[in-house]
């Protein structure tokens, strides 16, 4: 499908009639719509959805829950001009309502499979002054190649072109990208998302049909059995079969109910993950607090152990420690004694030499003094006598001095012994411990301060909420696990019962008179069984091929959008549609950055859209609030280069910049428009951007 033109009248912020002419002779399929927030970009997308399906949904997050409502065309609040408490605002332009112009319409002309379609949906008032939504009548009109389509066939025609269920893949907006990426990477793919993916890939055509072929086969089987009741011998077998049927029905009901419960838990887990994503700081702080507390506990244990060891070492060497002052005192005493002894010894040596000299002088007269080396003159008798007296005195002094020196004992040896005793005390261990205690005490202080700071941060964050959510998530996962086990057991019981039924039914005898009807029923059952098997096999092959195709296309998109493609090998998708990005060496990379997640989600959307083979224009409404300018530009290039389908990118100033985009890609674009407010009021004004 290619849109040729779109015309909006009094729709949302568009007062009066505004036209978007998509037709072009250039063959280009890229379109850009620029406009700041609130200028009518999303309204434009909503107008298309309203024209196609007759409804526009809006959602809001209130007290942690997401509420979705259909937007009315008018609202009673409009009569009072009070929208302060409204979030699902009416679709009819406010100014139009004020000016009593109650007509709203959207007209799309498009080409699809070689035919020209004109779809017009208009809303008109049933009363002169409508006050509530039921006062408005909505009427769709569709013509194909000029032929009018009857009212009851309009929606089936549209559903064939683009089923409402898969429209989200073609009208892509920030919230759908965000919720898709969040669920995809949380490791808990929601059943809803997988269902949507399988829907765009057309799997319901195989899956639903296969289930109906099973139903058809069972229906034929029952018809066959009802013919067989004519034989009396079959009656007891039929009673048994009836019992088995009831059992199978009951098991299937149980499986269905369990499946619903599993989906409920999966959905809740997804919701919790989304809620938890909004409290990253609290989660992070809790993690930091846990680590800090563990560190504190470790430091306290180290400190306690160090104290115990130090006490043990001190008590073991306590006597040595107590003797320390005494040893120091003794050491200085011995040192002094040694000095005194050395002095006295020196004096004694000198005295002995002097005595020897005097003796020679007395006995031989002149002699060479051993002390000074002088040779004295020969002495007179009187002098020798006087010298002899001195000698006797000096000898006595020397004897006394010797005795005195002996009294000193051996202080030099004592000093050496004392030193070695003192050094024998092993203080190194205690010193190491002292050092450890001091460092640990410092670390402990730092950690306590850190815990205080984290607690302050945590007071600000909604920790209780996070803990509640985490506990709830664990409970949901556990419950889902046990439900899955229950479902497995029920499925086994179902298979056993079906097998038992087939065995029992094989004992039925055929009434020969009913042969023609029986032949037809048997043939019909055979065809239904054949189609069941064929669809079953095809479904598993197709699932695999489709996944490989999406993986390949998403990889191409990812490598063309990322600024450093050499860093990546590509995108990997598993059987549950959980996605990861592989580095150039094949390792799975964490995709924690919201911008990366959004880009990856856009790539998967692209892969799904292309794999589905559906020809329909794609609208990207601000794709990626967290995506960098570089990636956005590459994304625009990826979409606008060589596209066979119309690709419309709507962007505000925070996304694709008008001037820059026009400079870079103006030559790839078929058309570009700029939306703004008119100078008088807040209604949208449309201007085509001239290249």
């Amino acid at each position: 499908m290619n849109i040729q033109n779109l015309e909006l009248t009094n729709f949302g912020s568009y007062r009066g009639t505004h036209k978007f002419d998509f037709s072009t002779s250039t063959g280009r399929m890229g379109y850009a719509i620029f406009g700041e927030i609130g200028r009518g970009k999303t309204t434009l997308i909503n107008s298309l959805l309203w024209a196609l399906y007759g409804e526009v949904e809006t959602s809001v997050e209130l007290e942690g829950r997401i509420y979705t409502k259909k937007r009315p065309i008018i609202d009673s609040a409009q009569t009072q001009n009070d929208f302060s408490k409204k979030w699902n605002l009416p679709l009819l332009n406010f100014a139009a309502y004020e000016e009593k112009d109650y007509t709203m319409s959207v007209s799309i002309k498009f080409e699809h499979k070689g035919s020209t379609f004109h779809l017009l949906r208009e809303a008109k008032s049933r009363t002169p002054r409508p006050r509530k939504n039921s006062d408005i009548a909505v009427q769709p009109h569709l013509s194909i190649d000029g032929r009018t389509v009857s009212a009851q066939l309009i929606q089936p025609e549209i559903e064939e072109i683009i089923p409402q269920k898969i429209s989200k893949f073609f009208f892509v907006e920030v919230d759908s990208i965000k919720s898709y990426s969040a669920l995809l990477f949380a490791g808990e793919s929601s059943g809803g998302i997988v269902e949507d993916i399988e829907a765009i890939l057309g799997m319901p055509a195989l899956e639903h049909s296969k289930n109906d072929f099973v139903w058809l086969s069972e229906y034929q089987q029952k018809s066959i059995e009802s013919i067989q009741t004519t034989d009396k011998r079959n009656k007891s077998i039929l009673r048994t079969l009836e019992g088995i049927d009831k059992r199978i029905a009951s098991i299937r009901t149980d499986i269905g109910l369990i499946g619903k419960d599993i989906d409920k838990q999966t959905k809740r887990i997804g919701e919790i993950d989304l809620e938890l994503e909004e409290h990253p700081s609290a989660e992070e702080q809790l993690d930091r607090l846990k680590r800090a507390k563990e560190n504190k506990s470790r430091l306290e244990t180290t400190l306690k152990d160090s104290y115990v060891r130090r006490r043990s070492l001190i008590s073991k060497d306590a006597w040595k420690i107590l003797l320390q002052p005494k040893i120091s005192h003794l050491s200085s005493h011995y040192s002094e004694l040694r000095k005194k002894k050395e002095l006295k010894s020196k004096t004694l040596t000198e005295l002995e030499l002097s005595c020897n000299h005097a003796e020679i002088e007395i006995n031989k007269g002149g002699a060479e003094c051993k002390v000074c080396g002088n040779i004295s003159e020969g002495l007179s008798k009187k002098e020798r006598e006087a010298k002899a007296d001195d000698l006797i005195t000096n000898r006595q002094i020397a004897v006394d001095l010797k005795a005195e020196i002996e009294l000193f004992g051996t202080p030099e040896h004592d000093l050496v012994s004392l030193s070695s005793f003192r050094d024998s005390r092993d203080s190194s261990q205690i010193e190491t411990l002292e050092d450890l205690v001091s460092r640990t005490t410092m670390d402990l202080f730092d950690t306590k301060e850190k815990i205080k700071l984290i607690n302050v941060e945590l007071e600000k964050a909604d920790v209780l909420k996070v803990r509640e959510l985490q506990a709830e998530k664990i409970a949901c996962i556990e419950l889902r696990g046990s439900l899955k086990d229950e479902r497995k057991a029920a499925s086994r019981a179902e298979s056993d019962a079906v097998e038992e039924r087939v065995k029992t039914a094989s004992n039925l005898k055929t009434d020969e008179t009913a042969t023609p009807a029986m032949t037809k029923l048997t043939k019909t059952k055979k065809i239904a069984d054949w189609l069941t098997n064929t669809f079953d096999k095809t479904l598993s092959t197709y699932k695999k091929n489709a996944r490989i195709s999406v993986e390949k296309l998403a990889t191409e998109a990812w490598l063309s959008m990322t600024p450093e493609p050499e860093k990546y090998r590509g995108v990997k998708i598993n059987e549950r549609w959980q996605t990861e990005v592989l580095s150039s060496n094949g390792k799975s990379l964490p995709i924690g950055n919201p911008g990366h997640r959004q880009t990856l989600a856009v790539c998967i959307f692209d892969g799904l859209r292309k794999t589905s083979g559906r020809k329909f224009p794609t609208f990207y409404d601000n794709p990626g609030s967290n995506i960098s300018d570089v990636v956005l530009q590459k994304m625009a290039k990826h979409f606008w280069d060589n596209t066979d389908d119309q690709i419309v990118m709507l962007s505000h100033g925070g996304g694709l910049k008008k001037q820059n985009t026009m400079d870079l890609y103006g030559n790839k674009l078929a058309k570009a428009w700029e939306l703004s407010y008119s100078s008088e009021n807040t209604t949208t004004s449309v201007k085509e951007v001239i290249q």
Partner: protein
Amino acid sequence: MNKSKNETDISGIIFNAIVQSEENPLILNDSEKVELANQITEICVKFAFKKNRDKFRKEIGKVIAHYAEKYEAR
């Protein structure tokens, strides 16, 4: 006889699966096989997203009954 070579086009996939199946219980020539495959494919794709399956069962039931009556089984 293949309608589509695209491995991911759902109509082509259903069509090819029916036409190429060697377990078809009916004795059909090539053009009859194509006709049957076209009819089944169209109904399956048309009702793919319908929650109420009654119409599908009715339409597909008619096609199968017709073939069961008209053609011999193997």
